[in-house]
């Protein structure tokens, strides 16, 4: 860190005035400690503010709609409006708080480092690591091709690479946070565990099938230099990273959250409670496979899907069916497949999609059995 940069961070610091070019190391320590403390206090204050808002959210809408606006909680309109505002605020708070914490935690694990961790380990460890890091690190779908090449060309077995590629979109951090907030922590945890288990099983099965011949040969021809290392980030780097990440995520999902919860509120208010039971959908053996297949071609933001899952589940649709629908929407998307087509030959792509589809159907049945 240069002296100029240093002064830039602490413009009002009296200590820096005495800094000379060779005295820089001497003065850096107290000033960095102060910045660190200030950052720490800021984080604690932000955490406290978050808790206050979260607790206040439970009460404030009762007062606003039922006491001030005079809506009746027993009417459809009253409960739908209350549900919409209460749930939107709650979900946005959860997303902001938890995504910030998750981003802070994973600011030091870029995929290059994950790859370096996996290369050379026993293949069983590789599957486990791929699933864990796949769940922790989201990547935009256009990164799937460079990731695939980077893993395979570095010597990560194809099956392990596929486990990573399946877990990453499937265990979506926003999906997990919203499920936890709307359906329950147990369900969110079950989703994470079964999703990772499914990705590992799918990876192991696929690795048994000798699929390397269907990987486009150009993948192995690319010379991939060893992973770049940006150095160890400081706390302020991490906080900055987490802040930017949280703002970007909120900016990209808030519309879907609003629309999803809006439709969910509509379902809560106007769809009869026994809708799925009376139409026979809830009891059908075909509900889970049908929901899974219906979700494959659909591509929607997970933030918009979770509120619908919650609403239809509240109306009696089996959780397995609802979850299978959500998982096939997020795990298998047409844009991602088109990109992967560039590195995987059609048979491999087809086997990959079929395996994941079957895995999701399996998870759907597991959910129905447990709940």
């Amino acid at each position, binding site marked *: 860190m240069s002296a100029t940069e240093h002064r830039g961070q602490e413009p009002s610091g009296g200590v820096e005035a005495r800094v000379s070019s060779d005295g820089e190391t001497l003065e850096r320590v107290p000033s960095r400690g102060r910045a660190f403390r200030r950052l720490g206090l800021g984080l604690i204050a932000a955490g406290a503010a978050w808790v206050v808002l979260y607790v206040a959210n439970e009460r404030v809408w009762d007062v606003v709609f039922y006491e001030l606006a005079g809506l009746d909680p027993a009417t459809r309109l009253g409960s739908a409006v209350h549900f919409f505002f209460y749930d939107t605020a709650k979900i946005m708070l959860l997303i902001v708080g938890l995504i910030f914490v998750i981003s802070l935690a994973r600011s030091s694990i870029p995929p*290059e480092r994950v790859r370096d961790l996996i290369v050379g380990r026993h293949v069983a460890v590789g599957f486990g690591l791929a699933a864990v890091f796949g769940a922790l690190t989201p990547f935009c779908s256009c990164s799937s091709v460079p990731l695939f090449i980077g893993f395979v060309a570095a010597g990560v077995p194809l099956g392990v690479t596929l486990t990573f590629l399946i877990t990453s979109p499937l265990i979506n951090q926003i999906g997990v946070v919203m499920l936890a907030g709307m359906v329950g922590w147990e369900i969110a945890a079950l989703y994470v565990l079964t999703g990772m288990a499914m990705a590992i099983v799918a990876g192991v099965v696929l690795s048994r099938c000798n699929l390397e011949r269907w990987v486009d040969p150009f993948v192995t021809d690319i010379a991939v230099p060893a992973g770049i290392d940006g150095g160890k980030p400081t706390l302020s780097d991490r906080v900055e990273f987490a802040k930017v990440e949280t703002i970007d995520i909120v900016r990209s999902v808030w519309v879907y959250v609003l629309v999803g919860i809006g439709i969910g509120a509509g379902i809560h208010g106007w769809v009869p409670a026994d809708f799925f039971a009376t139409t026979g959908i809830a009891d059908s053996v075909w509900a889970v496979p049908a929901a899974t297949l219906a979700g494959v071609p659909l591509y929607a933001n997970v933030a918009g899907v979770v509120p619908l899952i919650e609403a239809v589940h509240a109306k009696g649709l089996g959780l397995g069916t609802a979850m299978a629908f959500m998982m096939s929407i997020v795990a298998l998307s047409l844009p991602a497949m088109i990109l992967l087509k560039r590195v995987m030959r059609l048979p491999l792509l087809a086997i990959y999609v079929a395996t994941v589809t079957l895995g999701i159907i399996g998870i759907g049945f597991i959910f129905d059995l447990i709940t």
Partner: protein
Amino acid sequence: MDIKVLGPGCNNCVTLEARTRDALDDLGTDATIEKVTDTAQIMGYGVMATPGLVIDGNVVVSGRVPSVKQLTKLMKG
């Protein structure tokens, strides 16, 4: 300064390019910005997660979109 934005052209890559231009404006520095969209070339930089940013041959960002403030800091070196 020679800047390359690595990425096949998804939203994140577009955002990164826009923020890079903003950061350059803030600094008042002249630079050439080149977009690298070819996968093999992107991989050649050792970048596995897009978008990536290369300044004078050094990869400074991969797999995320930093803020304009962070980019300005990176460009100052």
